[in-house]
């Protein structure tokens, strides 16, 4: 324990040095500013924002890169609440719980108070989750020391199963998407050998499919295709948006007394939900709202649903606390707590960092600064968020036609800058179409993305297990307590949808 705390302590000077570099300042500003903008614009989400900026990080160091991507995640969740309050349209699904009270309070002539409540609750929730990530993750990572090849194989399966069972409407569809992702991860060179496989006679596939290219197609191009269709059908989308003017008083001391206990409790709730794989920020926000309702004092109960501060503080603290929580299982066991965390897992691997105990010991000089960066980003988000809210009108007035066109150009520039491959330009479009089809047919694209990211780890685990088992693969797995525990967990996760269905029938 003291060794971990020492490593954490020793990384502080390195982080301070890094913090004042131009690259880190750029990462923080672009991450927070871009995240707030993406979050505030209905139709875009942090996943699309992160994939869009992922190619840019190839030329950056691991600390500013991951800080920027994590900042987009946190700021995207916060930005979603601004459009919920001022436009009555949640920018992201995680802000849906904030709409009722947030917009009602703004309509009552106190939009500034609503925005300040949302900003401070989000910021505090985010800071709390970053601190939790800093202190919980290294200790949880110790669990991974008991893991060897068979456990990593099972972890890979566990990863896609949880995303499949929780992020998709149908367990079967989620599993199929995840397995397809794993098949795609096999394209190219066989790990540690010179055999090329599944290239289907296409030269460009010899180097394998680049996960960032696929993510750009799945999340960014498919999103533009969806929005393109929506805009073509709905002529009214070009109308000027009616955005409320920011006026009224800010938070008073008595307001703070009302919301602070709720922010603290909902931050804990959000953190817990974030750690639960697959649950995500939207669920966290609704559970936070429910808790805020319970904690609202009698004299303010009548305000609930009509602009209660509690109804904004609860969901906003919870959904931002989910962000750090979702990163805990991702950084320790390679199990992402949310679809966005699945993309961040890919980003971590792109920068040569592998989840597990080594991340907090051998790579401590990079990992702790990344977490400190995430912490700082959450803190800076508060003043930047308040500034951004004042300029919201300009952002939401941005014509969607311009926005989506610019996104496509950026996707192509990003795709080509990764490996200067012409074929990647075609691959990204094909995966854009595939992402559109899977989304419309209710297959989960995050399942596919996770299968792709975890495929190599899972295959290596299985391959080594076969080498070590001396002919008795079942006995080898059963003889390892960690394997038995993981198989039991897998069974539980697979049972959840069946139990849910049975309950719904009753």
């Amino acid at each position, binding site marked *: 324990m003291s060794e971990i705390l020492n490593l954490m302590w020793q990384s502080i000077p390195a982080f301070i040095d890094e913090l004042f570099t131009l690259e880190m300042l750029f990462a923080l500003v672009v991450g927070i500013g871009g995240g707030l903008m993406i979050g505030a614009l209905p139709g875009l989400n942090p996943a699309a924002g992160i994939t869009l900026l992922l190619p840019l990080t190839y030329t950056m160091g691991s600390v500013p890169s991951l800080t920027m991507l994590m900042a987009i995640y946190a700021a995207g969740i916060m930005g979603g609440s601004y459009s919920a309050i001022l436009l009555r349209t949640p920018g992201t699904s995680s802000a849906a719980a904030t709409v009722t009270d947030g917009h009602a309070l703004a309509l009552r002539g106190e939009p500034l108070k609503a925005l300040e409540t949302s900003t401070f609750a989000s910021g505090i929730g985010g800071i709390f989750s970053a601190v939790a990530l800093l202190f919980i993750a290294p200790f949880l990572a110790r669990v991974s020391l008991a893991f060897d090849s068979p456990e990593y194989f099972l972890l890979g399966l566990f990863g896609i199963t949880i995303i499949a069972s929780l992020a998709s409407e149908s367990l079967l569809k989620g599993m199929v998407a995840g397995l397809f992702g794993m098949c795609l991860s096999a394209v190219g060179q066989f790990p540690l050998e010179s055999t090329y496989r599944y290239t289907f006679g296409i030269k460009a596939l010899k180097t394998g499919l680049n996960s960032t290219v696929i993510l750009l197609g799945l999340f960014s191009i498919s999103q533009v295709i969806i929005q393109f269709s929506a805009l073509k059908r709905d002529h009214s989308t070009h109308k000027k948006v009616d955005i409320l003017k920011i006026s009224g008083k800010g938070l008073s001391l008595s307001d703070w007394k009302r919301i602070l206990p709720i922010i603290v409790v909902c931050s804990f709730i959000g953190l817990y939900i974030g750690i639960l794989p697959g649950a995500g920020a939207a669920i966290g926000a609704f559970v936070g709202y429910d808790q805020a309702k319970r904690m609202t004092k009698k004299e303010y109960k009548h305000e609930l649903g009509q602009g209660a501060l509690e109804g904004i503080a609860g969901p906003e603290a919870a959904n931002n606390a989910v962000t750090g929580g979702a990163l805990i299982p991702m950084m320790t066991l390679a199990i992402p707590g949310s679809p966005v965390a699945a993309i961040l897992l890919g980003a971590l691997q792109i920068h040569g960092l592998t989840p597990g105990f080594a991340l907090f010991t051998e790579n401590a000089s990079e990992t702790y600064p990344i977490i400190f960066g995430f912490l700082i980003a959450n803190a800076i988000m508060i003043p930047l968020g308040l500034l951004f809210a004042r300029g919201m009108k300009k952002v939401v007035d941005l014509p969607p*036609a311009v926005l989506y066109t610019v996104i*496509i150009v950026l996707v192509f520039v990003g795709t080509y800058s990764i490996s200067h491959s012409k074929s990647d330009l075609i691959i990204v479009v094909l995966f854009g179409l595939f992402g559109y089809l899977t989304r*419309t047919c209710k297959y989960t694209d995050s399942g596919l993305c996770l299968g792709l990211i975890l495929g190599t780890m899972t295959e290596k685990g299985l391959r080594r297990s076969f080498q070590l088992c001396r002919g008795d693969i079942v006995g080898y797995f059963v003889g390892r307590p960690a394997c038995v525990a993981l198989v039991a967990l897998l069974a539980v996760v697979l049972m959840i949808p069946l139990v849910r269905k049975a309950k719904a029938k009753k």
Partner: protein
Amino acid sequence: MKKRVSLHPDIIMSIFFIAAALLFFLESRDLPAETTRFPCICAGLMAFLSVFIMIGGFRKMREQRKKLAAGENTETGDYPFSWERIKFPILAFAVILAYALGIIYIGFFVSTFVFMMVFMWLLRYRVWWKMLLVTVAMEAFVYIVFVTQLNLIFPRALLF
């Protein structure tokens, strides 16, 4: 005229995944066994689970048929592949694919100019001076940041 129930999207997607699994199996034939073990397990499971989804799709189609026979309105959000719903996504895909081919065969900056103007126009944005301004600004941004600062060299093509 008798109204027909269209093929359920679950069936179409299942056919795609089963075909993909078959392709993986066919490609595995000439490869060393060790290199194909994991992908074959995944492809096999994928095909196996897709069969269940396909059966579910047929079941949903049967229900739709029954509803249709009973004179009920069968319009649900379950059929995303009708021409009415797929024409705009196909248009978007075609334009984006043409842009990708344009970058490869014509050149990045010319293709980007054409793509941006066409895509914005298709999205019913008709403020010409703003369209031009955004396009030129975007090209300048890419040139300054990616070409001069990050030394990105775009594919050599017909024009540039």
